[in-house]
Structures are given as C-alpha cells and as structure tokens.
C-alpha cells in the first residue's frame, strides 16, 4: 500500500514537471502554430545552466542540516537559482524566434520540423561544447534539501524537495491560468491564437507577441529543467524523453489547452509510474497507449483547443 502511494506521489511529481515542460510547448504550438522540436533541448539547457548557477549560489551557502534558518535560506536560494535559469533562457528563446523561426511561419510544416530539428542538433552540440559530454550532477550542494523530513505525518519518508516543487508548480499553474484569463497581455495572446489577422487589424504587434510567447515557452522549459537538477544528473540526451512525452501530453489535453495539459500531464505521470509496479514492460508504452486511445475516442483531445473561452 505504501509502495502504491509512493509511486503515485512519484507520478504526481513527474507529471507536474511534465506539465511545466508541455505548457511551454503548448502555448508555442497554440499561438505560433509551430511544433517546436527544440523544446527538449531548452529543457536540457535549463538543467545544465542550473548546475552552474545553482552550484555557484549554493556553493557560497552552508549546507542545510535542520529545520532552522539555514534551511530556509537554502530553499530561497534554490528558488532564486531556478528562476534565474528561466530568466537566462528568455533572451535565448527570443533570439531563436526572431532569427531562425520567424522566416518559416509561412512555409509548409515539414520545413518547420526540419528547421527546429536542425536547431535541436546545434543546441545539443553547443551544450556539449560548454559543459562537456560527461553527465553532471550537483547532488552534494543540493542533497541537504532532501534530508529535511516533512513527510512524517504521512507515515513514510518522501523527499521534501519534491513536495516543495510540486506545490510550487501547482501555484504556477494557477498563475498561468490567471495570466491568460485575467491580464491584458494574456488575453491578447489568446486572441492572437484564435485569429491572427483580426488581432493584427486591431493593432496587435504580432511579431513582437510571437517573440514574447516563444521566450515564455523557453522560460517554462528552462525552469522545468532547473527544477529536476537536484534529483538527477544531467546528460546530453536528457531532452528527448520530455519532448516526446510532452507531445503526448498536449495531444491528450488538446493542442494549445493549458488546463488540458495539466490534467493530461498528471494522468501520464501517474499512470506511467503506477505501471512500473503493476506491469514493468508497459511502463514506457503506457503514455502512448493512452494517447492513441484518447485520439481514437476524442480526436480533439480532452479539453479541445485553447484560446476559446474555457
């Protein structure tokens, strides 16, 4: 029983991080109408940046050993590092959009796929050039976080860092919904996703908006990568699985739907983790089987397309 609960928690944790990755992919697809194959590499770039930034910040702090002030400082520092990584990726995304992707909006989608795949290869080698091809892990400065025990009330130990990040992602999910439903710029983005010509006619600078949306997507991918660093080592191909799984998530949820991405990511995360304990052979196949089933039953995804009022 405890094992099942633990796997479910792992699934939730995995699903929430997956949501953060796919939310970036889904808004880029929803607004720009480009399937961004570099998204996984932006995620990996975020992870590699986090090893540097997080290492720098945490290296200057003491290791957390208890519940006290020190632990609080470290947690703030970790949030700071994650956020900083996201901010570094904003100009990266903006440059990619304006220099490389903008010229191909009017071209057939196969060219967009070739272009983003070429960028994927280039980013991967740039990462290899900067950080080397050896897997990096920063368990030492971060491991203290996992030693903070907050899970006694549930009756078994669970890394508190994961809990902490899960709460953070749920909060950012609410913030994203608020951004797209309540703020002016968010509504403009949604309006552009529904009808680009009309938005342009009403005076929206779509070129600038597209750049902003791509930068936002890069921000989410980078933050997701940075969040994972304390729990796993980085490697050069770490972006592949999140990329494919976020395809699955956005198709299940409905192309461009944030809410759909949230639900679908949780479903994919929990099911694939539970599959480990029930039928290990199906662990990798489970998300794709769900996707195929959903597409055959409800082709537009669970929540339909985004942009329309939810």
């Amino acid at each position, binding site marked *: 029983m405890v094992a099942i609960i633990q796997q479910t928690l792992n699934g939730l944790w995995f699903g929430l991080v997956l949501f953060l990755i796919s939310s970036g992919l889904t808004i880029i697809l929803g607004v720009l109408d480009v399937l961004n194959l570099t998204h996984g590499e932006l995620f990996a770039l975020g992870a590699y940046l986090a090893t540097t930034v997080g290492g720098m910040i945490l290296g200057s702090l003491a290791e957390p050993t208890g519940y006290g002030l020190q632990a609080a400082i470290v947690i703030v520092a970790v949030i700071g590092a994650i956020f900083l990584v996201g901010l570094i990726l904003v100009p990266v995304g903006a*440059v990619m959009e304006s220099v490389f992707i903008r010229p191909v909006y009017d071209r057939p989608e196969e*060219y967009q796929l070739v272009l983003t795949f070429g960028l994927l290869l280039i980013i991967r080698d740039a990462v290899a050039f900067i950080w080397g091809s050896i897997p990096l892990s920063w368990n030492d400065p971060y491991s203290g976080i996992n030693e903070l025990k907050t899970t006694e009330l549930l009756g078994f130990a669970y890394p508190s860092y994961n809990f902490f990040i899960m709460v953070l992602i749920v909060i950012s999910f609410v913030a994203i919904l608020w951004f797209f439903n309540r703020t002016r710029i968010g509504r403009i983005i949604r309006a552009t996703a529904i009808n680009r010509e009309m938005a342009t006619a009403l005076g929206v600078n779509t070129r600038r908006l597209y750049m902003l949306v791509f*930068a936002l997507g890069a921000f989410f991918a980078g933050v997701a990568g940075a969040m994972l660093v304390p729990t796993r080592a980085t490697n050069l191909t770490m972006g592949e699985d999140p990329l494919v799984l976020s395809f699955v998530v956005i*198709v299940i949820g409905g192309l461009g739907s944030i809410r759909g991405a949230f639900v679908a990511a949780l479903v994919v995360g929990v099911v694939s983790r539970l599959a480990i304990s029930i039928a290990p*052979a*199906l662990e990798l*196949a489970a998300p794709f*089987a769900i996707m195929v089933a959903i597409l055959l039953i409800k082709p537009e995804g669970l929540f339909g397309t985004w942009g329309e009022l939810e």
Partner: protein
Amino acid sequence: MSGSESGSEDGPDEDGRFVVTRGGERRYRLMKGLELTRRRLAYLVVGIVFLFFVPDISNFTPLSFRAVAHGLMFGTAAVGLNLILRHTREVSFGHAAFFGTGAYATAILATHLKVTSGFVLLVGALVASTLMAAVIGFLTLRHRGIYFALLTLAFGQLLYALALGFEYLGGADGLPVRPGSANKVHLFGILFPSEVYTPLVYYITVIFVLLSLLVMLRIVKSPFGRALDAIGQDRTRAEFIGIPVTRYTWIAFVISGVYGGLAGGLFGLFQEYIRPGRTLFFFRSGEILFMAILGGFETLLGPLVGGIVLVYLLQSMRFFTEYFNFMTGVVLLAVVYFFPEGVVGSIQEGGALRLRLRELRSDPAVVTDWGSGAVTAARRSLGQLKYIIFGSR
C-alpha cells in the same frame, strides 16, 4: 545523378523503340514513362555504376561503405514516405515504425523461428510491415495535419516502447538476425562467409533499391498517382470528381509503409543485429522525413540522395569533428533557408543552386547584395531583441 522523370502528355512521335524525339530533343526511352535526355542517361549510368562499385572504392578511399549502405536503406524508406509527403501532402512523423517492423520481423524470424533463408526473412519483413501499415494507416488517416504527424509519432513510439519492454523482443539489447554459428542466414540457399556475405547483401540492396525506384516511378505516373496528386491539392474537390479519397490515401500509406519495411528488412540482413534505438526511435522517424526534404521531396530520386547525404553526415562526420551534430544542424538550416528544393531539386534545371550560380556568373557583384541582406536581417533581429530585454527601441 539527377531526377529521372520526364515525359509529356502529347502522343509520342516515335522514331524507334528506344529513341524518341520530343520537342526536337532526342530522348532515350528505357520503359513506358521513363524517357531521359542523353545527359540524364549518362548521370544515371554513372550513378548506378558508382553504387555497384562502392565496396571496392571504399577499400582504398576514406568513403565509408557502411554509411552508404545505411544511407541507401534509410533513403528507400524516405522514398516510400515521399509518396504521401509529395502527393497527398501528409507529413508522417512515424515512419521508423515500418522500418523497425521490417527489421524486427527479420530478427524474430531468425531468432525465434530459426528461419535461415535470407529471402524468406525479407518476405517476412514485407508482410509484417504491410500489416502494420494497414493497421496504423486505418487508425491514423482520419486525422490531418499536425494531428496526423503526432499520431504516427505516437504509434512509432508505442512500438519502440514495446520493443524495449518485452523480453521476447530483446529489450534494449535488441535481437540478433544471425544467432549463433548453427543458424546463419543463407542467400540463394548458400552459406557465405561473412567477408562475402556483407558485400553481397549490399549488392542485393542496390538491386532492390533500383527496382523499388522503378516501381515508385510507375506508381507516380499511373492514374492512381495522379489521383493522389489531386487529393493533395484539394481533398473536397477530389472527392467530388469521384476519387475514393479515404481508400486511396490508405493504399498510399500502406505502399509507403511497405517501402519502409523493405528498407528495414535489408537493414536487418545487413547489420545482422537489431537494436530499438537504431530502428524504432522517433529520431529515426524524423531523420527519414528530413532525408526526403534534404534531398528534395519534389523529385523521385531526392529522398534517396538525401538519405545517403544525411546518414553520411550523421555517421561519418564524427570521425572528422567531435561536433558532428552541429554540422548536420547547419546543413539542415541551410536547406530550409537557401535550398528549399533540396539537393536534387537545386541541381536540376531552374533549381536554386543553378539560379544563384547564373547570377554570380553574370554579375559577381551580387555577392555584396547577399551580404547586405544578411546584415540587414541581423540588425533587425538585434533591434527586436533589444526591445524584448530593455522594453524600448
């Protein structure tokens, strides 16, 4: 080698069985629908002769024999994919599913069913991939555009995940096609030593590739191929003039899947060992698609040339530079921005490369125009960047 398609609709003014004159130009007629000018015929002969001598040439030059062979195999899959990409205008992002099905069919037959005849293994690959393409096509072709691409991707990844998960399929280690000394693959009923076997499989591959190109030419030129073109241009209109759209797209998808399966079966015979990452992973699907575009998907030969070029870039560049992915990425970017017709399309009459070269020859100063265009574009994007970061122009 150049595109081998030509042929006009007006009746042939025959002057012989093998030589015809069209518009005052002598053309050599190899079969119905395949007429070549003298230059193209020469290119074709040189290309075929080159393909047959690759194993010998690679003995005394750095040309990699394996890379060319793999390129031919993946290129054949790309030729198949091109049938739906070029004619029905659907982007399949899961063609590795059929390549992998073909490869795994040979491995399963050889390992678990102890089949030794190479041609039975190939037939097995063809049958398995036909069935797989029929099922996947039936389930995916209800969807269009990006949904179709993602759905084919999902099926490909589903097969990949199953191959990884099940012990029967070898898991991550894969399966041998020639398990043990007692169960080797026979060709023509003869057991060959391995130094003869590999080149022999290569020659068989070349023959199959040439045959499959001819078959594809006939398909494209047939009424069925024309109907696919009509479907690609406008589905509703095609439906109205009486083309059974659903059935035809499904048949086209199955044919393209069979090409993938043939390529995969040959790959299994050639490699003698199958791993899921080499055959079924979604990067392979992407590569098969990119081969078609890199070589020029508006031509018949383009995908094959693109296959050889891309595989060569991915497999052989790593001996020259550590950052071979970067080089491949730059090549793909160059194709998108400067040579959208692909390698073959650009070399052909009226292609981008020809046009650029003619401009350069007539007026070398055109280079400064290209340069200033690039500078303007870079300056504009820097301005945009400044806006995004600092919020003002």
